[in-house]
């Protein structure tokens, strides 16, 4: 059941919600995808996982391979055409779908693809957007007895404009102490292809961010993107810092019974 939102459940129409797990979560962070499923089911949403899904095409687009991205975007719109909402635990991938798919579709020269993109792109939401805007909840009934600091990843913050939504959700988690991260809005230095092509600069940015994270004294660094957390986690473990990195979905999925 999905209360409110674009199309409320009626006798004729059951709102269909799909999970876009993202390629990085699929391959490396299955637990984040599992957390989204657990969380949404707890909130009464029977989320589907269309198995044809692959990737949002951002790696190709951001490296400059727009033509290579065309079949990936085509697969995306085909996969999710029949869903009212596509929910994804990644601000970056949601940002790519909403802001880059049209770029790729234009490049393809296929007006049909442009129309399909215009349909699916606005229905693709980052997790906190879906929870707050569609489900209308800020207290998801989670329990997480740790001190946490939140890094608002760039694409969540500036591409999607998720604003305070993740913070509102975290503030309502029982047992959780949220500590302010100074310079939170500055990029962590990941940037996809940037992390490899400009590794030195990427690392310099990551090291500065990691230092500020450690200075908060938090046990856990939380963010809505595992790509940024992979980069920051890589810096933190290399520095033997005690801070763990955890995706927002995993904290929101935790309950007293589950004892994360």
């Amino acid at each position: 059941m999905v209360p409110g939102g674009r199309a409320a459940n009626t006798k004729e129409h059951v709102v269909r919600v799909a999970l876009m797990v993202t390629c990085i979560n699929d391959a490396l962070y299955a637990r984040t995808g599992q957390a989204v499923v657990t969380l949404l089911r707890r909130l009464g949403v029977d989320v589907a996982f269309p198995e044809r899904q692959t990737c949002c095409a951002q790696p190709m687009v951001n490296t400059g391979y727009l033509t290579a991205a065309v079949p990936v975007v085509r697969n995306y719109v085909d996969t999710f055409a029949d869903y009212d909402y596509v929910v994804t635990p990644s601000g970056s991938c949601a940002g790519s779908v909403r802001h880059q798919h049209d770029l790729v579709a234009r490049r393809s020269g296929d007006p049909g693809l442009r129309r399909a993109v215009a349909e699916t792109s606005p229905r693709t939401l980052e997790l906190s957007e879906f929870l707050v805007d569609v489900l209308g909840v800020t207290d998801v009934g989670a329990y997480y007895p740790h001190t946490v600091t939140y890094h608002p990843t760039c694409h969540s913050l500036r591409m999607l404009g998720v604003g305070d939504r993740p913070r509102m959700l975290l503030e309502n988690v029982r047992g959780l102490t949220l500590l302010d991260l100074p310079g939170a809005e500055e990029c962590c230095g990941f940037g996809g292809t940037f992390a490899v092509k400009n590794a030195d600069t990427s690392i310099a940015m990551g090291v500065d961010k990691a230092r500020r994270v450690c200075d908060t004294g938090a046990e856990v660094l939380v963010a809505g993107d595992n790509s940024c957390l992979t980069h920051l986690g890589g810096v933190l473990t290399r520095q033997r810092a005690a801070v763990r990195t955890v995706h927002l979905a995993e904290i929101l999925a935790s309950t007293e019974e589950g004892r994360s």
Partner: protein
Amino acid sequence: MTGTFVGMPKFPVAAREALGDAQLRHNLAHATGTIRGKRLRLIDEVNASTPEGTAWEELRLAGAAVKERALLSLGDQLEQLEANLVANGATVHWARDAAEANAIVARVAKAHDVDEVVKVKSMVTQEIDLNEALEAEGIAAWETDLAELIVQLGGDLPSHILVPAIHRNRAEIRDIFLRRMGETGRPAPADLTDDPAILAGAAREHLREKFLRARMAVSGANFAIADTGTLVVVESEGNGRMCLTLPDVLVSVVGIEKVVPTWTELDPLLRLLPRSSTGERMNPYTSTWTGVTPGDGPQEVHVVLLDNGRTRALADETGRQALRCIRCSACLNVCPVYERTGGHAYGSVYPGPIGAILNPLLKGVGHDEQVDSLPYASSLCGACFEACPVRIDIPSVLVDQRAQVVDARRGGRPSGEELAMRAGAAALSDARRLALGERFAGVGIRLARRLPGLPGLRGWTSARDLPDPPTESFRAWWKRTDGGRRPDPTGEQR
């Protein structure tokens, strides 16, 4: 005396060197941090001036609209500008490229038999290497902006649009003044300290004799108003006023994108520029002049309208918006990459995010590795777009420029990157192939952990660990447990 950017290495190489300079990083972090704070306070002040709290965004939209309107009617605007300049006693020249523009300036200087000119800080004359061209003709060009003076005396390169000597601290500046001022004019006093007020005082004395005797000045212009023929220079120190007022002859080199259609459309730009650049409500001095004013200021006024790649940029549907740039440098000051590498790494007088798009747009991609490396010198974090007073969507242009770099380089033997992208795209457009690939992801990570020197991964692993290898992909878990609905025989969730 000034260096040039010719032959600079690619961005990642230049950046590595800059990142090793602790003094530079300290200077940059201090300077950009200060200016960011000032700018944000003023934006809050503007927003507080109306109940809706959106006045700054409305100003940005107006500023962008004015420049966009100018660009989409640029042919007519330029003809109107020319007609109004001529009607008010100015001489108008047109220059296709740097060489033509430099030759025009040198010709005017020679016609007046001068061997020196004083210069207002101007990005465009640096872009065309005017000083070097004049020097080759035996004409000395004196930079009169304090930071430009520091750069010129130090035989150095500018590293910021607004504060070209941002990479120098006060002790370094004192040292440069003591060593070099005497070579070109009045020396610095021997008891010079590194107090900024004392250093500025030394520059005042050094330059004043040049201002008082100069017969010709060279400037750029921040704006050129088509419907009146008015040029506008925005500055702080008064060196601009000195150059625009005291000499007999004034030559202004103006990029064709500087056009503003009407006088009143200058208004939003004058409200946006100082707040975005220096974090002031208004800069100390703005001078406007329309051709020649009898009995006041230069009595011979030349304007050189310069293309030098601007028509190439204008033809780029996505990139054209970069020509809206009013050179405020807000994008530099908020850029986490610029803050760490400084401006020299970009190999151009236009550094930072705007430089990363403007240089490839002006010069074209596919024939210079340094230029082609610039669109990749960004994490696409979007802070630049948020700060830009004329709403240039720099991240989108960066992505588009990357695509153009890839396209321009296609045709030869495909690079490793291209092969990887093709293979990746093939896997990612078909879930079955992706599932197959994922079974090897864990193997790959385990391999990479054991062999940290693996080519391609060296950049990642030099200061970052790789994550723990997964035991199962999400899609495999979903299939095995029916999305978690089938009781998990192992009792494990990972």
